[in-house]
């Protein structure tokens, strides 16, 4: 098995073609080993921007992983990802199926890791629940419709989700980030 590491990730400011998006991940050139993340809005420019970068960075990583699978990488660690790709007829390019498959997979696997990373960037000021909103940002509709949480098929509770919004707001209003980065 050979892992191809010669991929290029570009991060730049740019337009996301009127999508209303804060940022977008362009995997249209993944066949040439290139993924470009465009930032259209940095939001408040603190932890929310970090969460946006993580979200788009995960898209980029998934693009890379699936492209490597085409080159013979063992997909057994991410069975559901390739299953979702199959179900949504995703092409691993700029297509609606790829968008759906990647977000569904992110709702299954990346909400807590994003929340945890933001908690760390914020210097562990609150418990993980306060950061779950950052993880669910962009993925909530997938959560409401149903996702796997540690192998269990459940849906995100809307009251719980509303609470995450409130906690996220509190975190953003009081954070010192990016000041905490330099400590």
């Amino acid at each position, binding site marked *: 098995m050979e892992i191809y590491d010669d991929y290029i990730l570009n991060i730049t400011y740019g337009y996301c073609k009127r999508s*209303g998006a804060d940022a977008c991940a362009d995997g249209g050139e993944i066949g040439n080993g290139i993924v470009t993340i465009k930032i259209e809005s940095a939001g408040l420019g603190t932890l929310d921007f970090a969460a946006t970068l993580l979200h788009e960075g995960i898209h980029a990583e998934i693009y890379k992983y699936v492209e490597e699978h085409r080159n013979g990488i063992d997909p057994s660690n991410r069975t559901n990802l390739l299953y979702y790709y199959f179900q949504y007829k995703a092409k691993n390019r700029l297509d609606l199926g790829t968008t759906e498959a990647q977000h569904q997979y992110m709702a299954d696997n990346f909400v807590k890791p994003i929340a945890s990373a933001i908690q760390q960037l914020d210097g562990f000021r609150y418990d993980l629940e306060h950061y779950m909103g950052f993880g669910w940002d962009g993925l909530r509709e997938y959560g409401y419709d149903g996702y796997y949480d540690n192998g269990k098929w459940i849906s995100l509770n809307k009251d719980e989700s509303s609470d995450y919004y409130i906690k996220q707001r509190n975190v953003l209003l009081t954070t010192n980030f990016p000041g905490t980065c330099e400590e």
Partner: protein
Amino acid sequence: MWYFIIFGCVTFLAACQDYSTKNENLAEQEIISVLYDSLAKKIPPPPPNLHGLNIKDSLRILSQYNSIRDSLKFEKQIVGIIPTMQPLESKLDIMDFNSSKRELIHRLNSLKEQKPLNIAELRTLRSDSVVEFGEQHLREFSADYYQINKLLSFSRISFNEAGNEAAVIASVGTSRLASFTAIYFFRRISDKWTIVDSKGLSMS
């Protein structure tokens, strides 16, 4: 005599212009309606992957999945639409498209003015609640939208010389971190505007 001929020509040309504008408005309304029905529909989550599970676990998971999926069928969506068709923020590269589409791309690139989009004129087969998108739907501290399930937006629409082909960029998103944008190509077939091709432009 000359006065009457010139007056007649001007009147004829003005009438043609009115007819052309009216036809274009009707075509735009139909194209947006077709796109709306295509993009606003709810995409259900994929059925669970039961590979490697025993029958008991498989049935339990399938039952949970079916219950969630069935509840989605009756869920009424609130769809926000940006009430203007905008010119492109940055021009599309004509060379990214095959020669049969370049006239439409060139015309799309050259459209400069925004145009109002009257959502009351949408002719949709769906039973969503459609609202004009505004600042009130943005959350200050989250990328998600407030009180809408989806946001749809459309660019200006370009038509070919014959008026039987069109191109438009449309976006659908459930959040500012979950959206998909593509250019859609239409052709008038049997008196109906039909999507004949599309190309993804961005995803977030």
